[in-house]
């Protein structure tokens, strides 16, 4: 999931035996955390849906996707295409085949653009943006922990949320748990200057990665979006090409507004990918599909809990399968 460039990752478990085991473990945990959502969806798509293939089949499939927050337009497009394929004989009019093809189509929609996170530069700069309460700071903690513990990288965090009460303290706690260094400013300080300080510190200490946190903001606040653009420019002045990765956190429970969020944020700063958070709930995070379909912005990571380990790479077939699996 991460492009480390020319670095030799330390602390990585030896391949072969550990790898498949760890992989299985990852998938098992993924299935576990998504099983709740699957169970919920299962109630929607029961076996009987596929017994007889008729108009009701398509309606029920549409219903399931809408309930998953995929949104009417993307749902209509996908189901219509599937219906045509079945009508034309390209897909056999039989339950198993239709389900498999649907999973395939959903995964295709979700697989848009580069899914790897580019941390090849030294230092690599990652910026987290998003609406209030979506899980930016927690995600930063998780990313830092993964980078530091799994790959042995040195991480600097920038407490760019200078607005929210105790935001820096919150990030400080994560820095502590993740073994990362924290650069902070005073409360109410200019976010651009904190970003500047954090990136400068990373350069000075030859750190591998610097992650810049930003305050949660609604995309409807023009002045705050402008502020975000400014933070990005400040970073870019220090290191051309930086931030190398800008990730937007989208709460899996978000409805159609998630599309607006992704669109407006990517107008202010170049958003490279989505972190789809809180997938350990019952929400399916279908809006990520719409974001991929309409904006071409891929999900790169998923958050499945509040603990440091609860971060996974986004795997489109797994995601689609988990949504429709039995």
């Amino acid at each position, binding site marked *: 999931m991460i492009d480390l460039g020319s670095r030799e990752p330390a602390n990585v478990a030896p391949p072969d035996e550990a790898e498949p085991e760890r992989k299985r473990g990852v998938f098992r945990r993924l299935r576990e955390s998504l099983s709740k959502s699957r169970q*919920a969806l299962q109630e929607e798509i029961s076996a009987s849906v596929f017994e007889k293939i008729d108009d009701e089949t398509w309606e029920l499939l549409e219903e399931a996707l809408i309930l998953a927050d995929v949104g009417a337009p993307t749902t209509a497009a996908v189901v219509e295409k599937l219906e045509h394929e079945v009508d034309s004989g390209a897909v056999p009019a039989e339950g198993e085949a239709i389900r498999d093809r649907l999973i395939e189509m959903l995964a295709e929609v979700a697989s848009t653009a580069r899914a790897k996170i580019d941390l090849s530069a030294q230092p690599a700069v990652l910026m987290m943006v998003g609406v209030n*309460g979506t899980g930016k700071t927690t995600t930063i903690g998780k990313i830092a922990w993964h980078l530091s513990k799994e790959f042995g990288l040195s991480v600097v965090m920038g407490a760019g949320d200078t607005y929210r009460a105790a935001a820096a303290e*919150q990030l400080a706690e994560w820095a502590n748990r993740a073994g990362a260094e924290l650069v902070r400013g005073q409360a109410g300080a200019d976010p651009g200057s904190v970003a500047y300080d954090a990136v400068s510190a990373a350069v000075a200490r030859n750190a591998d990665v610097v992650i810049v946190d930003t305050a949660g903001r*609604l995309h409807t606040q*023009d002045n705050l979006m402008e502020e975000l653009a400014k933070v990005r420019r400040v970073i870019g002045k220090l290191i051309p090409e930086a931030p190398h990765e800008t990730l937007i956190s989208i709460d899996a429970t*978000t409805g159609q507004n998630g599309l607006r969020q992704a669109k407006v944020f990517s107008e202010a700063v170049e958003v490279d990918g989505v972190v789809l958070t809180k997938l350990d*709930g019952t929400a399916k995070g279908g809006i990520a599909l719409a974001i991929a379909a309409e904006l071409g912005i891929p999900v790169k990571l998923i958050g499945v809990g*509040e603990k440091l380990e609860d971060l996974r790479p986004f795997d489109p077939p797994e995601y689609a399968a988990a949504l429709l699996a039995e």
Partner: protein
Amino acid sequence: MFDQLSDRLQSTLSDVRSRGKLSESDIDSAMRDIRLALLEADVNFKVVKAFTKTLKERCLGAEVMDSLDPGQQVVKIVNEELADLMGGEGVDLAVANSGPTVILMAGLQGSGKTTACAKLAQHFGKQRKDVALAACDVYRPAAVDQLITMGRRAGAHVYEKGTDADPVDIATWALDRAREERRDYLIIDTAGRLHIDQDLMKELSRIRDKTKPDDVLLVVDAMTGQDAVGVAESFAEAAEFDGVVMTKLDGDARGGAALSVKAVTGKPIMFASAGEKIEDFDKFHPDRMAQRILGMGDVLSLIERAESQVDEKSAEELEEKLKKDQFTLEDFLTQMKQVRKMGPLSGILGMLPGMGAMKQLKNANIDERQLDRTEAIILSMTPAERHDPTLIKGKRRKRIADGSGTRVQEVRALVKQFDQMRVMMRSMANGKMPDPQKLMQMSGQAPRPKVRRR
């Protein structure tokens, strides 16, 4: 968008006169339009289904079928039915007979509980009540610190025991303290929790059982999608909440979750929170929410916000000036400043009714920088020039342009636009609606490229 829905319905049901009577399939088409609009607004699919079923029955009545403008009738009915479903005017919180009124706040992670606690605290503070907050979120890093800081800002006392104590113990201890210290309100902040997390839901039940709150409020993010129903049902079962606080309403999420929660649990939305500042809190108005869900402008909020900025006397004086055509650039400057104080212009514009006719204007991102330039130009004028712009020619124009850092053409354009606007505002003040085309030209907005229909 309501205007889009309105248009869609108009075109679906428009050629009635030519065809004669409306048929049931016409109504079905209209129901489809409404279904799409509500789904776009994140109203739960099942709620939408049930709602359109009831709606259809009403639409098959004479009210619509015999109407000359069925599209308009349907729109009216949808608005009424929605407002009805959202419940009557905001319900009041229960207040304790003796001792502090205890309010328990619950909800998912990130929904805005802590901010809502502080806002509630300030809300009561304005009524001169003595408010205390209990910090029962011991899981989220720095949550206690956050509540302490926000509590201080809200003028409330915060009871906390750090992060090592058990949340249930903290809550009961806080209640004892609140009683001893004779607080009027105790607001208990809790950790965000998943409705499917059995352990944490049990913890919530225990807090409720031990503190016996007068009100349990579920905090719901306005941008929540289809999941809102599942969440509300689970929390209703575990916490038996009395009402809902909708948060982040300052965004542009249509807020269909509000309708879903109300429809499925029957519990009223009690408060609307819009903004991260403590002052941005209000009683919930169901009719306004209904309008918002449908995409209609939130007119009343706009009027209230405007009222708070302009006192009545100057508003009357302004109206007089407009009528008598005595409105000057000076007045315009004052008005512009007041409008800008109300909030980012694009947000305000979105609130104006009748924006359906001026779709493009609504979607336009009003350039604050352009307004800065306009303001600078006016400020570079002498009072005499502001009073009588016909004075502004040649040398004066150049002086103004240089003084404001703009070009001569811009000064000329401003004076011309102002003239046109003055004429328009005079007729508005005398009761006539402006021509949308003219309004658009005046604001200097080039028509935006048509958005691709999904």
